[in-house]
């Protein structure tokens, strides 16, 4: 695999994998009522915020009510998508056998149908994390996010596409599964999308129906204000989700891999790739909740099916293991990580930034430990 991994002997990689497995087993054995109570509380909060937000918009003629309503609704949508939807659909609560928390049955407040997302995200992205041409999260099929993606003039628009993707992120997540880029390249036929497309239409119809038709109509003369309020809440969630998710894998120093490098990976090597390919964001407790604990992207990628509320408690141990094996643990405050992502998006629009970079991690152990 990459340079850094060559520094570890196969036995070390195996030992490293075993240490991570131990953390996992300890947490799995400890799961219980407190985890269920936690997610039930988050769900209660989310539903209450949603009801309050929708209710306040009935008084939307009064500006403070409109602002409060939009804020409540935005937070509700963020919680629904991130701390509840993303995590439940990862199977983090399947052990409870509660149908309302079942990864196979849960549907989120997002135009992307849960079933399609489980394929594109849970399966494709989490199995092939940061493997070029396999992990379709690298640029979502529209952006150049890695120097190894061959430059062409289309990529001059990289910053523009990224901005559009951030604004319409839920639609981007939905269309992601159609694999337009592969259709353009002729690797996939239009007709392959019929079934997926129908599901999208149905789900998107319902979501658009409630946010942009039914709720506005119900508020009568306030319809334009309600429409605008719901659109703002969706936009806020889009910008937030895009920011958090792009900080998860694309800050500088996060590595990507080729298919050849990752053939016949052992479990330890798989863990290694998850760590090298992910980045965390530092912040307070509320911040972590609002990101769905994806601020602990590294821990999430190691253990995607462990309840996310457990990531903060194991982060220290994971970091210590990384230090022990001389591995980077990429983390930083939101503004720093975001700036790093933005810089990459702009830089990679240009043809002269085409050389795949040598992983910074092999250059010196000093930068590695400071990361």
């Amino acid at each position, binding site marked *: 695999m990459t340079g850094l991994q060559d520094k570890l002997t196969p036995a070390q990689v195996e030992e490293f994998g075993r240490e991570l497995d131990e953390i996992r087993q300890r947490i799995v054995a400890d*799961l*219980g*009522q*407190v*985890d*269920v*109570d936690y997610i039930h509380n988050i*769900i*209660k909060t989310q*539903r*209450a915020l949603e*009801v309050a937000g929708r209710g306040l918009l009935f008084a939307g003629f009064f500006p403070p009510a409109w602002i409060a309503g939009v804020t409540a609704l935005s937070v509700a949508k963020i919680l629904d998508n991130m701390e509840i939807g993303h995590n439940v659909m990862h199977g983090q609560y*399947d*052990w*409870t*056998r*509660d149908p*309302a928390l079942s990864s196979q049955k849960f*549907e*989120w*407040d997002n135009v992307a149908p849960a079933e399609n997302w489980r394929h594109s995200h849970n399966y494709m992205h989490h199995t092939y994390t940061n493997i070029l041409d396999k992990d379709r999260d690298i640029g979502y099929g529209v952006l150049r996010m890695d120097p190894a993606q061959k430059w062409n003039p289309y990529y001059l628009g990289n910053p523009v596409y990224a901005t559009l993707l951030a604004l319409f992120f839920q639609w981007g997540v939905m269309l992601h599964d159609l694999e337009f880029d592969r259709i353009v390249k002729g690797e996939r036929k239009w007709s392959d999308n019929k079934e997926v497309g129908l599901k999208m239409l149905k*789900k998107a119809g*319902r*979501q658009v*129906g*409630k946010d942009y038709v*039914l*709720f506005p109509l*119900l508020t009568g003369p306030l319809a334009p204000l309600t429409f605008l309020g719901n659109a703002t809440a969706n936009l806020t969630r889009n910008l937030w989700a895009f920011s958090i998710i792009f900080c998860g894998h694309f800050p500088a120093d996060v590595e990507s891999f080729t298919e050849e490098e990752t053939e016949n990976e052992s479990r330890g090597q798989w863990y290694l790739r998850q760590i090298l390919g992910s980045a965390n964001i530092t912040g307070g407790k509320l911040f972590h909740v609002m990101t769905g604990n994806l601020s602990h992207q590294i821990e999430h990628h190691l253990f995607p099916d462990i309840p996310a509320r457990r990531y903060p408690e194991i982060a220290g141990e994971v970091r210590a293991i990384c230090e022990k094996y001389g591995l980077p643990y990429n983390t930083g405050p939101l503004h720093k990580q975001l700036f790093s992502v933005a810089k990459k998006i702009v830089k990679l629009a240009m043809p002269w930034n085409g050389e795949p970079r040598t992983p910074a991690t092999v250059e010196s152990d000093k930068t590695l430990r400071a990361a």
Partner: protein
Amino acid sequence: MTALVPRRARRLASLAEALLTPHGMDRYLELVDPMLVRREVRGLVTGVRRQTPDTVTLTIRPSRAWRGFVAGQYVRVTVEIDGVRRTRCYSPAGSEHDGTLELTIKADPQGLVSRHLNRTVTTGSVLGLSTPDGEFTLPSPRPRRILLLSGGSGITPVLSMLRTLADERHEGDIAFLSYSNGADDALYRAELADLSRRLPGLRVVHAFTHAKTGGDLHGFFSKEHLAEAAPWYPDAETFLCGPKPLMDSVREAFEADGLGAHLHTEEFTPPALTFDTENAEGQIRFARSGREFENSGKPLLEQAEDAGLKPEHGCRMGICFSCTQIKTAGCVRNAKTGETSSEENEEIQLCISVPVGDVEINA
């Protein structure tokens, strides 16, 4: 106008569903009160009494979605224990003509759910319920002569039949032969005494297996007991529920007399599953989770669990159908009946299906 109200209510409900998409109304209603849900059945415990030291009798008011049950059927009861939902089957003991639900649950010393229910349920608890299921029911029209035979907590489905027949003012002969260890374990004695006063054709016989006094009959089931309790039993339809040894000896007696067709049974104790772990071969594949492993010869549910999967399941004995999944390819043998089936895209119960060679499950 009366016809318009439900239609209008339905329209309002579907508007509410559209407004509350994707979660639906129940996920909001249950936060206000778990009994308000519309699609799932739940039960509010309105009464708790203890007839014997190791049983609890619950009176339950089911939520709106409940459509009643037929005497002899069972319901799946779901409770949360340490954050995990657990489901078990119990037969209601009350009359099918009664709107409430009565369950009597014996605490099995090894039983997670039965012990939990005995320990923790109080008035005001809310339990998850299923719609009722099961074929162990009285035929319609009712047979003229009916023998009801039970052992221990197996009394509940047959008592339900008796109470239903009492509500229907059944005029034929009914014998109720109930086995228990002794007077301390005998369930529903007062109710049975009350019923025999109300139903002229009813004869209640208490048989104690471990006590020499206090009952009408003593010792384990025998043909003499049968002749004593219901001399006309060859003319009757017999309904039996109880522990396996009782079921086996009754079945044997009826088979010997060529009366097997008149004996109807319900089993709540796990049957002895037959499987062979020595000569197992083939690959098992759980398609959706992508998990693949060697067939160990055990039932599929156990194999899946051994492989780290957690399929939905309930009774683990082939009666509740919670673990039903679609078998997309391969052949399985039903460990209860020995029947094999190799149809594609067939629904099978994981807990009692043993793979014969390669099998693929869509789960």
